[in-house]
């Protein structure tokens, strides 16, 4: 997209979007939100980035986000699958209500976030490839 203001503003806003997404993911167990919402935010942020700056890339690199997303879908899926196999009391469990209190659930939330962000990216790229 060839708009000066958007590019300048977004260059700085992107960091905050990604940070906010990470915040939502990591606080999934103590506040509203969680893996899905946070992953959505991260995915949208990355999507906006590729929409704004993707056209300047070399044509060979333009498929890269999709490929990376495919790898991360696999990783997120493995994290997700492990969750169901372990009993619910496991990992380092700390003080309830604090950030690092739920053991592996944080990791799993992170897996969901990865999955959702990568899925959004890959859906977008599949649609772009159509035409």
């Amino acid at each position, binding site marked *: 997209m060839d708009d000066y203001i958007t590019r300048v503003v977004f260059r700085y806003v992107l960091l905050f979007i990604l940070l906010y997404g990470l915040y939502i993911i990591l606080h999934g167990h103590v506040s509203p939100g969680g893996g899905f919402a946070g992953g959505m935010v991260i995915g949208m942020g990355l999507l906006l980035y590729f929409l704004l700056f993707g056209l300047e890339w070399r044509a060979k690199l333009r498929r890269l986000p999709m*490929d990376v997303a*495919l*790898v991360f*879908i*696999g990783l*997120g*899926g*493995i994290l*997700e*699958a492990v*969750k*169901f*196999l*372990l*009993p*619910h*009391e496991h990992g380092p469990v700390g003080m309830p209500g604090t950030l690092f209190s739920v053991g592996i659930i944080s990791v799993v939330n992170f897996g969901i976030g990865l*999955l959702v962000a990568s899925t959004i990216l*890959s859906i977008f790229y599949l649609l772009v490839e159509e035409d």
Partner: protein
Amino acid sequence: MFLWDKLPFLLIIIILLLCFVMPFFARWKPVVCPYLTVVTVIIVFVISVVLTFRVAGGEVIHYHAGDWPPPWGIEIFIDELAAMMLLLLTGSCLLIVFYSLKALTKEIPGPAIGWYYTLFLLTLASMMGIVVTNDLFNLYVMVEIVSIGAVGLVVAKGEKLSTEASLRYLMLATLGSGFMLFAIGFLYQVTGNLNMPYVAAELLEVRDQYPFLMWATLSFFTVGLGVKAALFPLHIWLPDAHSSAPSPSSAVLSGLVVKVYIISMLRIYFLVFGIEVFNETFLRSLILLLATMAILGGSLFAFVQLDLKRRLAYSTVAQIGYIFLGMGLGTVWGVTAALLHIIIHALMKICLFMSAGAVYYQTGRKKVIHFSGLGYQMPVTMAAFTIASLSMVGIPFFGGFITKYGLALGSLEANNPYFIVLIVVSGLLNAAYYFPIVWQAYFTSGHDPQMTMDKVPFTMLVPIIITALGIIYMGLFPGRILEFLEQVSIRLLL
């Protein structure tokens, strides 16, 4: 030991895991995907055989996901019915995967093959999830995943016709899921539980206070699952979707996907609501009426189709009618015959669709009128096709006869002897649209017949032969499986 306890869950999670990993291979190494799928399905088949042995030893398997006990957590529950369905699903999918190794190369575009197997595994995993879950909301989630996977299996062909059909399928399936979600919401509102035995226990106490809600919930379940199971007036998506899909997907969709919804319907009607509600709300009369319409209407529609796969798809509508007829009769023999027909129809339809695909693979013929002389060009395939057709019609010594016999006994048990007439008439109708194909293949060749072997790969031929042998086995030695299914249906109708 760790894995031995988790076995029921591994069954589903292994495949779902592969679905997440498969896109990676589909992108970079598409050659690996079919073999990966074969290995996975073999592992799952072995697991379900092990589980079946455990269930046959008198154990009823309860597994609590993440160790959360039932009223809160998701419970996986494998009884005889679930074990039977697991064995049927994984066994047939194993045959279909072997078949699709070669068959797919002619039917869908090359780059799509890796993605096709992803969707195939997704459909298999969620079908098994529907069968083994004991939680209503989990059931809903699995139903949604089956819809998505099945629509994907239809659209994989990438033609205009299959795209249109899959869009219609998607819309109607979503509508059905919506109805189901409403019904589950009502049940949760009334009982405060989602686990099926708990819902059933609560309903026993509160169902007299909410008569209209019971009507609404039951009708929502009937419409929602009826759309997906292609009960007659709601079947309009089925013929297009099943006939325009690639033939391995047609086999999965027609043989297995519509059946798992019927299993969950059986559970909801008989285990959650109980047979009294089923009788009091006239649901039984409705299902009997719709099943009658399905049997006659499906056969009559099939009669006028010229495309072979379309004819087979309409035949599925009629055969689903048989299963619903057995369910609506509500007697031990009726439900036994319905359960048996789930197995036998799966075998027959998979055999027929695979044969149709093999004919398309070798000769490129789709229309029924172009089948003349095929019996000499493809003797093995057409022999299997003939066996399945004879079984469809209900000739003795083939599987289909046993279910028709069971349904007739069931209708006598239910004091409704008119249904025997229906069964006989529908057998004649089946003969009217299956036998011309067989007749043409064997007896109307224009020039002098030259006997040659099928030029179809080995991996396609063997599954066809196995299903045909299965049909004959079911017809000759139905005793043990009938005994087993009778136990299952007695427990359902208790």
